[in-house]
């Protein structure tokens, strides 16, 4: 039987009218702004939970933690060196408060986790992966010539790459943020890592991965490259990154790696059993919807588009098998909840329509596009 994982419900310290909080967020001092945004986030979740009614109340019997809202930053990073082994725990080489240890991958992981923690804390008002200050652990130099990075449910693991196809996996900040964001999505929601739900999980990691990078670089939606993993592919490889959120399917086309298989529209949706049902393939569709939303809204993508997506992934209506159209509808509702009917709601709707998913006031519809096999 399917059961929802426990959810986070924060206490509400004050409930101000959303327009007032938004005004503070836009015009207040940096400190006021952070607090207001944190409150907007908590408040909207509260309203979402209330809106969802008994179903959520009944399923959140293990509600935990009260005030997560007013605490100060609790960044706690630990980086371990596995020295080419695939056996944990390795050797602790850098922890919070310490300066660079001199190991490039370890220091990149340390800085990447810091930028990602700061993003979730300062922009989304979230205190680490679990919203409650969970210490962040990264493991570098995993395996020999290991060309991957992953989240194993507790920690982030990075390989050095083989040098022929891939460089070290800590080279790209958005990849580090991608892995940490898997922890956030897993903690927030019950999304299965399979088919469309899994592709949404992947897309959330790309969205936050890209936003962390954009914020660090100070790029607006127009200036951002919207690439995931730029710099990760070795020089010999024909390609610029692992994925393109702006133009899915164009990131690489190489003799060895093959051609980027990501679709950017529902008509090109790939039906496959590989890759957990195409989680890294069809994520191109929601990725592009996010990129288009942010581009339509302009300015810093993390401010409005990012907040709308973050609210959506925390929405209690997210289920293990939530599909693209369910999620599209939830993002539109998040936009309305956060900003009222207007520019943001319209931008989200239009962006989903551009990728072949129509969200009307009452329902979501996806035209019957033909499915394509991978590599077709």
């Amino acid at each position, binding site marked *: 039987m399917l059961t929802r994982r426990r959810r986070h419900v924060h206490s509400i310290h004050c409930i101000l009218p959303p327009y007032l909080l938004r005004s503070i967020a836009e015009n207040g001092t940096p400190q006021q702004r952070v607090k207001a945004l944190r409150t907007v986030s908590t408040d909207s979740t509260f309203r979402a939970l209330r809106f969802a009614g008994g179903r959520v109340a009944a399923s959140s019997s293990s509600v935990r933690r009260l005030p997560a809202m007013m605490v100060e930053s609790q960044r706690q990073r630990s980086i371990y060196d596995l020295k080419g082994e695939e056996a944990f725990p390795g050797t602790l080489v850098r922890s919070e408060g310490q300066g660079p240890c001199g190991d490039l991958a370890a220091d990149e992981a340390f800085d990447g986790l810091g930028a990602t923690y700061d993003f979730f804390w300062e922009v989304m008002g979230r205190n680490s992966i679990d919203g409650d200050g969970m210490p962040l652990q990264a493991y570098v130099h995993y395996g020999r010539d290991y060309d991957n990075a992953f989240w194993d449910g507790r920690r982030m693991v990075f390989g050095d790459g083989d040098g022929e196809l891939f460089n070290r996996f800590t080279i790209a900040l958005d990849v580090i943020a991608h892995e940490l964001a*898997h922890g956030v999505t897993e903690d927030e929601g019950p999304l299965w890592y399979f088919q469309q739900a899994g592709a949404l999980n992947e897309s959330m990691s790309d969205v936050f991965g890209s936003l962390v990078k954009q914020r660090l670089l100070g790029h607006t939606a127009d200036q951002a490259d919207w690439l995931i993993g730029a710099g990760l592919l070795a020089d010999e490889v024909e390609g610029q990154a692992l994925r393109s959120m702006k133009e899915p399917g164009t990131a690489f086309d190489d003799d060895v790696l093959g051609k980027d298989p990501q679709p950017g529209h529902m008509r090109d949706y790939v039906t496959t059993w590989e890759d957990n049902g195409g989680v890294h393939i069809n994520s191109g569709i929601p990725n592009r919807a996010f990129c288009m939303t942010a581009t339509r809204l302009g300015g810093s993508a993390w401010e409005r588009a990012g907040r709308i997506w973050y609210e959506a992934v925390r929405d209690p209506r997210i289920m293990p098998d939530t599909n693209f159209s369910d999620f599209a509808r939830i993002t539109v509702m998040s936009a309305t909840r956060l900003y009222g009917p207007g520019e943001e709601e319209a931008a989200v709707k239009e962006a989903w329509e551009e990728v072949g998913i129509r969200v009307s006031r009452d329902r979501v519809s996806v035209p019957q596009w033909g499915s394509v096999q991978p590599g077709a």
Partner: protein
Amino acid sequence: MSRDSVRIQLSQEGGLAAFPGLARPRSVELSELPAEQAEAIEHGLRDARFRELPAVVGGGSASKGADQRRYTLTVEEGTRRHSVELVEPVEDPRLRELLSLVKRATRRRGGGH
């Protein structure tokens, strides 16, 4: 085993991104490889007792996590064929060494089939 008739095939799926070129099985005849590389793989197969391995090796808790990878390594020698799925994390260092050797051999630019 006679090097002339040994064919090694490797495919992988999962991982941080989908690479059709790496998911597609790639194979190589040991006889096509430089002698040193072929000997290292033969040695690796013996060291890891590859032929005695069950169909699936490795893997931890499958219910959590993301971007993990699995490999399928197949060795054909005449009519004999043995295939093993290696799920990360692969803990046996001899198997990891073998995997690393086979990866290099099958991913040569312009090499592999």
